[in-house]
Structures are given as structure tokens and as C-alpha cells.
């Protein structure tokens, strides 16, 4: 198989398979969660929970007072990694083109040199987070296979993307194919690991926030 054939394969059948697993996986997992339902609140509430839930979704992006000081590293590195990853994913012109082809919507991107920076930022933040995970007493203790697998499948698209973008690997179709393959891997793994938090954090924050709001507390 030539690198061109390989590219065709990952772009074609492999991509379709990964997309199918991604979409059905997510739907299945969300259904698993939502089908459990919430107990009814019988206490006389101080406020309605619905809007409080949405406020918490937004508020939790900013750490509560005093929290930043105690958990500074994880907050900073976490933010940098998420920013680097999301900017590279959603604001790189070739990616936007792909979204346009598949979803039919598009938006303006950032100049390539900036994407270069965001990718490197994401890569370095992820390396720092990994070192922290391997050395911090709590994280070392908590972490298992799922944590390292999730790290790996998130890290690979950043690195392969950077390699392809900088033409560090020849021939180019091979580099591109590896990048796409790494994304497919991410798509397949996401629904079945903690990476699902990308979606379920909305349910988590909303339920916590609405329950608190009913008691007159903003969390």
C-alpha cells in the first residue's frame, strides 16, 4: 500500500467507521445517563433550579475565590491545554474547510502561524500535565489506564498535526494520513472514557447548579 492508498483508506472507510462509533457511542452514553432520571424535589425551594443550572455552567469556568491559589498549576496548565487544543481544532483553515464539507457550516479561522503557536502551547501544556500526573502524589494515586489512554489519544492529534503542518515527515500524504488516523482514534475512544466530559460536564454542572440554586446558593 502506498502512502496515497493509506490516505485514501483513512479518509474513506476508516473515517466513516470512526464517525459512526463516535456518534452512536455518544448518543448511547448520553442515553445511559439521562435514562436514570432525577428524584423530585419536595422541599420548598428558594428559587427555580433551571436558570441556576445554566449560571453554574458558565460560572464554573472561573475558579471560586481562594481556589486558584491552591490549585494554580492544574488550572493554568489545564486552561492552556484546552485553549491550544480547541483553537487548533476549530480555527485552523483546513479544519474549517472539512467542517464545511461535512456539516455545511463554516467560520473564519486564524492565520497559520498563530495555529502553530496554539498547537505548540497545547503540546507543552499536555507534557507538563503528564509529568504532573506521574509525580503529584494525588494524581499518581488516582490515575489508571484510562487516564493515560485518554492522554495519549488527545496528545497524538496535536503532535501528528504539528508534524504534518511543519512537513517533518515525508511523504506528506503519510504524515497527513497519520494525523487523520490519530483523530479517528480519538473519536473512537472518546465516548467510552473520561473524555466524555467534553459533553457530560454540561449535565454535571447543570444538575449541581440547579440543586444549589433551589437552596438559594450560587455555586
Amino acid at each position, binding site marked *: 500500500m502506498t502512502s496515497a492508498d493509506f490516505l485514501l483508506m483513512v479518509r474513506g472507510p476508516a473515517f466513516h467507521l470512526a464517525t459512526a462509533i463516535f456518534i452512536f457511542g455518544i448518543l448511547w452514553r448520553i442515553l445511559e445517563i439521562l435514562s436514570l432520571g432525577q428524584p423530585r424535589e419536595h422541599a420548598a425551594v428558594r428559587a427555580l433550579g433551571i436558570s441556576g443550572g445554566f449560571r453554574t455552567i458558565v460560572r464554573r469556568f472561573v475558579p471560586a475565590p481562594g481556589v486558584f491559589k491552591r490549585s494554580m498549576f492544574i488550572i493554568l496548565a489545564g486552561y492552556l491545554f484546552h485553549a491550544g487544543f480547541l483553537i487548533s481544532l476549530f480555527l485552523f483553515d483546513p479544519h474549517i474547510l472539512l467542517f464545511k464539507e461535512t456539516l455545511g457550516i463554516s467560520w473564519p479561522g486564524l492565520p497559520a502561524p498563530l495555529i502553530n503557536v496554539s498547537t505548540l502551547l497545547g503540546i507543552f501544556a499536555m507534557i507538563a500535565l503528564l509529568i504532573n500526573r506521574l509525580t503529584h502524589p494525588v494524581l499518581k494515586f488516582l490515575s489508571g489506564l484510562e487516564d493515560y489512554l485518554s492522554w495519549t489519544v488527545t496528545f497524538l492529534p496535536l503532535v501528528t498535526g504539528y508534524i504534518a503542518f511543519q512537513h517533518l515527515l515525508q511523504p506528506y500524504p503519510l504524515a497527513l494520513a497519520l494525523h487523520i488516523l490519530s483523530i479517528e482514534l480519538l473519536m473512537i475512544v472518546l465516548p467510552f472514557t473520561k473524555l466524555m466530559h467534553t459533553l457530560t460536564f454540561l449535565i454535571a454542572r447543570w444538575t449541581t*447548579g440547579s440543586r444549589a440554586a433551589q437552596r438559594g*446558593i450560587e*455555586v
Partner: protein
Amino acid sequence: MSTATFERGYSALKEQIDTSIASYLQSCVHCGMCADACLFYTETGNPKYTPIYKLGPLKKVWEQEYTLLGRLKVKWGWSKPLTDADLAEWKEYVYDSCTMCGRCSMVCPVGNDLVYMIRKTREGLAAAGHAPEGLIGATTRAVKIGSPMGVKWPAVLAQIKHVEKSTGLQIPVDQANVDYLVLMSSMEVMNFPEYMEAIAKIMKSVGKTWTISSEAFEATNSGIQIGASDIAKEIVSRIVNAAEKLQVKTVISPECGHAYMAIRWEGPNLIGRPFKFKVQHILEILDDLRDQGKLKVDGTLEEARLTFHDPCQIARRGGVLQQPRNLLKMVAKNFVEMEDHGQMNWCCGGGGGVSAIEESHELRTTVFKRKKSQLDALKVEKLVTACANCRIIMEEGMEAYQMEMPMVGLTEMLAEHLPETT
């Protein structure tokens, strides 16, 4: 309690899992931030006290019961199913090293309400027979005698007589159609009769009618602390029955924090219907009376530099945050706030039934270092709070660290500043 077995524990855990819990367990990214928020971790450095780790059994049950992959993993032998030994091991994490203070729930970046899950995990451990002896004892006494400390009505009556004598006021018992039914914790009855005195004086001063019920004087609920909803329901029903029988409009939850959680928030859910009366914390009542201009003070101010310790269940979990501050301003000149206060306050170290767990005694003293450093930083001369349990625990802690600091309940402090009556 019916006989405790692993199967009962397992199904209790299974029953607890709802959409929010599933989303929490699914979302956790193992960032470790909840550890930084928990005094049991910050003061010991033991990673096993990380809040999310304390939920191990609940997570296992969720995986093997409610996720396809988890079910397959167990079937194919990739992961070990939950065992009774796991539950026994987790007693130390779910009870001994967790005061259900809820501080962890404030910091989780994905929004996990961790203490909500701790409360539910206790249901499983209790049903499997792995609750601590101290809590089992308290719960048994609460069911059989009517109070976790074994306080019977004659003892309450003796205190009532004593308070009547010291105040010259009559303490109403079992009177129907009054404004308020006043509840107390056994700890307040036995160790802090000042609370009852304060209520008597304040009620007279504001012109409200009230009563104590001989059938339901105890406000705390050991069933909640141990995690046995059936018992918790029975205990709360006593209050509901008494309040409905006496036809009171409002039940006053005493200063005690967990009592407020039990009667105000969990109570209606335990009996499965809304209450026909209102439940308010004493500080809410006092602040409302202040707002209406009924609660007046004599104008003298406390000179001492003082601060307020927010009981977790009243503030962070109960939503009574501004009221104590409004009230303090009426009577204190030098009120200062701790660096982390209100919703972010640190627990005294003895909530959630931990004060009744003997094995936790040493750990409790260790984690009191958190409160100590908060107080040391402020250089205050006096500590005000609104929970008899916090008060006892902090007194113990201060003794252990040789700190000299008078402590007072806010209700009691206000009662000392009432205008002279003629």
C-alpha cells in the same frame, strides 16, 4: 435496621444512582482539585482522602450496573466486581475522613457535587453493615430513645425548669396554634442551655408565641448521618407529626447545621411530600424579625475583635449566608471575616457524624489545624458560630492546641443585647 448484608448494601448503592451521579462519575477527569479543597487531604497529605476516591464503591456499582462497557468488563473478567471487603475498606473514607462539609463540591471543574454522592454512598455502607460503631449507637438511641445522645424528655424538662428559673420566663410546652415550634439538638439541651434561654428572651422581646414539643424536641437526624433513609424518614416524621398536630405555621431549626439539612432540605424528600408548614433556621427567623423591625437591640456593641465560623450545612449547603452577617452587624463593632468564609469556609472537622466516630478522634484533631491557621491569621479574640456541634469540636481542637478563645453562639449573643424590658 434490618439485617445488614452485602446484597442490601449493593442494591442500596444501585438505587442511589441518578442522572446527576452518572454524569459526575462520567465527567471526572482526575484533576485532583477536589483534594486541595478537602481539609482531610490538605492537613494530612494522604491521597486516599481525595474526595473522588472516597466514592470508589459508588463508581464501581455505576460502571457495572449502568454502563454497557462496565458490564462487559466484569463479564470478560477485565475488572473485579465490587466486594464486601471493598465496602469495609471504604468505611474509613466515607465516614471517618469525611464531614460531608461539601467544600469539594465547590471546586470541581466539571461541576461534580461530590458530597451529594458521599451522602448516597453512606446508604450502601450502612446497609451492608459497615457504618462506624459510634454512628450505629447514635442512630439506635435516636430511634429507641428519641435522641442520639440518649436524652429523654425528663432531662429536657429538667433543663426547661432550670431555664425558667434562671430567666424568670415560662417555657411553653406542647401548645397548639403558636407561631413557632422550636426544635433543639440534644447537644444544645445538655451542653448549651443558653440557647433555650436566648430563645425565651428573644421570643418575649419580639412578641411571638412558641412552643417546645414533648414528642419532637430533637432536631438532629442520625439516620441521615449514617445513611439510612428509612430511619431518617422515621425520625423526621416525628417532627412532621408534632408540627401538624400542634398546627404551627413555622418550625424553627436550631443552630445545629446538620439538623437544618435534615429538616429543611432532606425532610420533605424523605417523607415524599412537601411539608404543610415552613421550616426556617433560627438565623433566618432572627434576620426576618430584624428586617421587620421587630428584633431590636440595646445599642451596646461587642468590643472584641471577632469572626464568624459558618457551619457548612447552614451556609454552603443550606444557603443561610447573609443573615448571620446582618445580625452580627447589629451587635459587633469589630467583626472581621476569615480569608475563606461563607460558601468557602473550612469545616470544623466534626460534621457529618464524625464527632460521634471514636476512631476519627485523632484525625479530627489533626484536621483542626486548618481552622486554627484561619483563626491565627486573623488574630481574633472571640469566635462566633451557629452550631452546637461545631462549637464542641472547636472547643476540643482549641484545647488540643492550647488556644485560648471564647466561643459563643450567635443567637445567644443577640439575646445578650436585647433592650431592657420593664
